[in-house]
C-alpha cells in the first residue's frame, strides 16, 4: 500500500509507464521465485470510466431534508429553551421565595423598629426624662417658631417697602 501510494503520488510519469514498470518488476520477481523457470505473464489493463456516472439532482429531496433539518433544529432549540426556562423558573422561584422571606423579615424588623421608636418617643417618657435632667416647660411666649405667623401681641416696626412692580421697572 505504501508502494502504491508512493507510485500514485509520483509525479511526471504517465499511467502506462508506471504500469509497464510494474509489470516488469513482477515478471522479475516471478522468475526469481520459480528458480529460473520463466512463465510469461501478461497484465491487461482495463480502464473503467465512471466519469459519466453522475448523481442526478433531486431538489424535492433536498428541500425535504433541509426542512427536516430546520424542523429538528427548531424542535431541539425549543426543547432546550423550554428546559432552560423550566429550570430557570424553578431557580427563580426559589430566589423569589427567598427574597420574599427576606422582605417579610425586613418589614417585620421595620415594624419592630417603628414600635421601638414609638415607645422611645412617647411624650410622657420624654417629659419625664427632661424633668429628671432639670429642664422645665417653656414659659408662654418663650418658644418661638420661625415658621409660624407674626405674633399679633408683639409690636412690629413699620417698614416702607417699595412695590415690586416699581422695583422691576428700574
Amino acid at each position, binding site marked *: 500500500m505504501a508502494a502504491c501510494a508512493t507510485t500514485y503520488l509520483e509525479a511526471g510519469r504517465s499511467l502506462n509507464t508506471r504500469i509497464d514498470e510494474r509489470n516488469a518488476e513482477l515478471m522479475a520477481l516471478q522468475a526469481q521465485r520459480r528458480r529460473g523457470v520463466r512463465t510469461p505473464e501478461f497484465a491487461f489493463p482495463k480502464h473503467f470510466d465512471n466519469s459519466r456516472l453522475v448523481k442526478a439532482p433531486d431538489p424535492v429531496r433536498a428541500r425535504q431534508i433541509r426542512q427536516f433539518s430546520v424542523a429538528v433544529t427548531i424542535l431541539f432549540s425549543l426543547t432546550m429553551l423550554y428546559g432552560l426556562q423550566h429550570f430557570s423558573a424553578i431557580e427563580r422561584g426559589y430566589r423569589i421565595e427567598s427574597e420574599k422571606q427576606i422582605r417579610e423579615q425586613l418589614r417585620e424588623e421595620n*415594624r419592630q423598629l417603628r*414600635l421601638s421608636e*414609638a415607645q422611645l418617643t*412617647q411624650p*410622657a417618657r420624654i417629659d419625664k426624662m427632661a424633668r429628671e435632667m432639670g429642664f422645665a*416647660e417653656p414659659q*408662654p411666649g418663650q418658644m418661638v417658631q420661625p415658621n409660624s405667623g407674626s*405674633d*399679633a*401681641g408683639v409690636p412690629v416696626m413699620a417698614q416702607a417697602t417699595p412695590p415690586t412692580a416699581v422695583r422691576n421697572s428700574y
Partner: protein
Amino acid sequence: MASPVRPSRNRTTAPRATPLKLARFWLICLFFLAWAIMIGCRLFWLQVVRHKEYVERAQKQQQRTFEVAPRRGVLYDRNLRELAMTVQVDSIFAVPSEIDDKQAAARALAPIVHTDPEDTQTTAEQIASRLDAGHSFAWVARRVNPETAGKVKELIASGVLKGIYFQKEFQRFYPDNEIAAQVLGYVGLDDAGLGGLELKFEPQLHGVSGRMFTAMDARRHVLGSSEREPAPGQNLVLTIDENMQFLAERALDHAMDQTHADNGTVVVQDVHTGQILALAIRPTFNPNLFRRTTPALLRNHAVSDVYEPGSVFKLVTYSAALDQHAAMPDDPIDCQGGKITLAGRVIHDNQGEHYGVIPIHQALEVSSDVAAVKLALKIGPDRFYQYIRDFGFGARTGAEMPGETRGLLRPVNRWGSSSIGSIAIGQEVGVTPIQLVTMVSTIANGGVYLPPHVLMPGQTDGSGKTPATAQPFKIGGDLPNPLPPGAHRVLSTLTAAEMRKMMEGVVLFGTGKGAQLNGYSSGGKTGTAQKVDPATHLYSKTMHIASFAGIAPVNNPVIAVAVVIDNPRGGSYYGAAVSAPVFAEVAQQVLEYLAVPHDIDLRPARPSTKQGNPVVEDASEHTGDIDALYAAVNDLPADDPLRAPPSQSAPAAQPAASPSQASTKPANTAAEAKTDATQTSAATTVTIADGKTLRVPSLIGLPVRKVIEQTAAAGLEVQITGSGTVREQAPAAGAMVAPGTKIVVRCGR
C-alpha cells in the same frame, strides 16, 4: 367403503357442532358484556352520580385547612404616629409525646415564662397539666417577650429541653401605654377588638383571614399545599394629636391629684372642623395590660356618661335669646334680687348674690339663674327646645366611638310646668362632655354645628385602599365648604360673635377667672351640678360635678375645651375653682404647641386665682325634677349605654369574650343594678335597668318589721338606720324606681 359413510356422518355432525360453539361464544361474550355493563354502571354511580360526595370525603381525608391570621391594621394619630400596632412575637408550644419527663420540663420552663405574677396560665402546675393532657400539642406560653424567648432557646440549645418549639403570633402593642386608652380600646387574646375604636372598627381593622390547604397522606404527612394570602386590616388615622393628648392628660392628672375626684374628662376640639384633638379620661388603664383593668376604667365617660351640666348650659339659653333677638348683650335684665318663682317653684341665684337690674352680659358673667330663666321664658319652650336640639343635645353626635348615649332631653310635651326654668339653668337635662364641647365649638366657629369626629374623614367608605396620610393640625382654618353631613347653622354669625364676647367677659370679670390665659384671650362658662346619690336617687349635698367649657383665642378661636371633673373632694368643688384651671393649663399649652399667635400682651407670670382674684362660685341649688330624669332614661333606645349597667358593657374580666359579649345588654337582676350603683358615677346612678318601674310605697310611721315586709313584697331593698318607726324615707313615696332599688329609711322613737 368407509369413505362414502364418513362423508354422510360428517354431513350429519358438522352442522350441529358449529352452532354450539357459536352459542358458547356468544354466551361468554354476553357474560363479559354483562360484567362490563355492571362495572360501568357501578363506575357511573360512583364517578358521576355520587361524584360530589366522594370528592368531599376525599378532601376531608386528604386535605387539611389551616387558617392564617391577618395582621391587624395600625391606628395612627393625625401626624401618623403609631398609637396601636401589631407585630409578631414568639409563642412557645410543646409536643408532649416528645418529652420524656413532663414534670421536669414544666419545672424548667415555669421560672422563665412566668413573668407576670397575675398570669395563672404559666405556672408550673398549669404547664404540667397541659403537657399531661395533650399528646401532640400544648401551649406553654403565648406571646412572650424576646428576652423570655431567648432564655428558652438557650435551654433548648443546651439539650435540657426537648419537644419545645416556637410559633410566631401577632400581638397588639400600644406604644404610648395609657395615652387615649378609652378612645383606642383594646384587643383580646384572639385578636378581636373589645373596646373603643378597636371594637367599633373591628371589621376594618381585623382584615380577612388567609387559608392554607394542605394535602396529606394516610399517615398525615404533608404532601403539598396551596394558600390564600391573608388580607391585612385597614390602617386608620385618627384626628387625635398625640402631643395634645399628652398635654390634656397631664393637666387632667394634675387636677385629679389635687381634687381626688372620682373621674375627670377633658375634650379638646378643633372648632373649624369638629375634629377631636384630644380626649383625656382619668382614671385610665393600660391597654397593653388589659387583663389587669376593671370595667369601670374602660368606660368612655366622654360619650357614655351624662351629667346635668348646670350653669354651662346657660350658654345655650343666652345664645337662643340673642339669636331670637329676645335680648341684646347690653340690654338690662331684672334679676329680682336673685329669686324667681316659676309654677310654684322658687329658683334662687347663688347664696349671697342679690342682683337687681344688670346688663345681660353681666348676668352671664355672674351666672344669674334668674336671668337665664327669664330669657328662656321670653323665647318660649318650643323655640328653646329647638335650639337645644340644634346644638346637638338629645341626639348622638356620631363620633366614631362605641357606646355613645344621646343624653337626656325630654320633648316639650313632656316638660313639667317649671321644666323650662330648670333646663335654662342646666337642670333636668343630661349631656355628655362631647356634646358640651361641640356646643361651645358651634359658638366659636360662627354658629355652625359641626359633628365631632375622632376618625379622619373618608377612611371607612368601604374601599380600604386609601393610604394613610399625615394631616397635621393647621391653625386659622375656615369652615369646610361644603359643610359635611350633619352640619347645620344654629346661630347667626353676629350672635356667635356676641356670645364669644360675653364668654370672654365671664373669664375676665365673672366666674371663669381661673380660665385666664397668658398671651391669649379666652372665653367660657363654668358650671357646678349636684350629683344624684346612688343610694337615695336624690340630689346629693356632698357630691358635685364641676365643669368648664371654653374657647381660645376669643377673636379667632382655634380650639374648644370642655373639662368635667366628677365629684371633686378635699376642697372646693366649683367649676370655677376645679375645672377652669384645667382649661387654662390645657388651652395655654395646646395653643403654644400649635404656635398660635398671641392676641394679647404676655404677662411675666400668670396670677394665681387662688391668691389673686377671688373665685366667684356659680352653683345653683338643685330644685329640678329628678323624676323627670328617670323618665328620660326610660325613653332612651334599648342600645343606649345608660340603659345597661356599665360592668356589662365592658367585659374586662373576660378578655377572650367575643365582641358580641362586649356589647351592652339590659340588666336582669336587682343585684347587678345595686352593685353598679355603688361603683359608678352620677350619670349611671340614674340608670333604670329596664322598662319596668315600681312605685315606692309610703313607709313613714311604720315599724321596722313592717318596712321589711312591705319592701320585700314590692321587690325593693331597704337600708335602715336608727330604730323605732320610720321618720324619713328616700326616695319619697310615689317615686318610680327600678325593681331592687334600695330604699333608705331613717327610724326614730
